[in-house]
């Protein structure tokens, strides 16, 4: 994939990415089946559900669209809601872009399709130093969720609601996010960013089109930068 990564490096990085994402798949699979069940309940066919899971491949926005379809919402509202939920992908793209700059445009276009919360978080936490084969690490961490997502969606749709909601398996997703965020809280500035994002997300949860998520994310970044600047100013780091 890259001139700087010989096959051995590529293979090692790909496997390391796979290994890093594997426990997180335990959270993705139940979420995928829930998404499949919801698609079935909204009256989608298997082909339609696949069109969504392959064509959109972004769980939260798929679930929101399916619910809106079931409620016979206006098409424009559905599209807007899904896009706002997925705006965070542009933030991930900006954050990870520098690590992929050595790759050709077609490779970057290919890797972009697989960008998810999980593949991003696992990769960016790992990409601390400059090393060859970052794209392979990311690809390992990204292709597994994609596969599990497609399988889980199909299973949920075909088997229906055979998993009782009282098992609360949907809770596995926020739990994996918790596991992913903690290693990124390294100092006072990042802890402040996390706290601010949490408070803002709760305060702004009522905003239409899920704009609360974006508000909280941007607010958290702002607070983190502010605390960092202040600490630098007083030389406390």
């Amino acid at each position: 994939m890259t001139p700087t990564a010989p096959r051995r490096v590529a293979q090692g990085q790909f496997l390391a990415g796979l290994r890093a994402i594997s426990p997180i798949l335990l959270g993705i699979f139940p979420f995928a089946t829930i998404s499949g069940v919801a698609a079935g309940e909204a009256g989608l066919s298997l082909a339609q559900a696949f069109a969504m899971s392959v064509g959109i491949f972004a769980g939260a926005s798929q679930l929101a669209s399916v619910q809106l379809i079931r409620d016979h919402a206006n098409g424009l509202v559905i599209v807007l809601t899904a896009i706002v939920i997925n705006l965070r992908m542009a933030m991930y793209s900006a954050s990870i872009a520098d690590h992929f700059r050595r790759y050709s445009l077609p490779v970057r276009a290919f890797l972009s399709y697989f960008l998810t919360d999980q593949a991003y978080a696992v990769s960016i936490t790992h990409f601390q130093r400059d090393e060859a084969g970052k794209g392979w690490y990311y690809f390992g961490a990204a292709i597994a969720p994609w596969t599990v997502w497609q399988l889980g969606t199909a299973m949920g749709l075909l088997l229906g609601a055979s998993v009782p909601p009282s098992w609360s398996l949907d809770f596995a997703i926020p739990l994996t996010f918790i596991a992913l965020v903690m290693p990124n809280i390294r100092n006072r500035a990042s802890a402040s960013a996390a706290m601010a994002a949490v408070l803002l997300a709760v305060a702004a949860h009522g905003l239409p089109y899920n704009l609360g998520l974006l508000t909280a994310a941007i607010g958290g970044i702002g607070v983190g930068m502010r605390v960092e600047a202040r600490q630098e100013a007083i030389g406390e780091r």
Partner: protein
Amino acid sequence: MNDSTFLLIVVVIGVATYLLRFSFIGAARHEPRAGKESAWQRALRYVPVAVLSALIAPALTLRSGALALPWQNPRLIAGLVAALVAWRTRNVLATLAVGMALLWLLQALG
């Protein structure tokens, strides 16, 4: 909703979502600028922590769209304990196991 409307919606969301993913990766510069870290680069360092926190908070604190207080909300308690486990162990499996087990226990007791 008819078939072609559904397909149109999926295509529009799919293309838009792809373009969001591709946006900055596609525009990646070939050489990093030397020297001091820019404000943009500093902001990007807070993306993982801010976005993930913003995703987690509503999942722990809201029940059917309304704020639920800690003692009425097993998810908040289980989530906070799981965060402690994640912080101490840095282990995804342990975080998942403790969080799910505690949620089930609290629900069974509740």
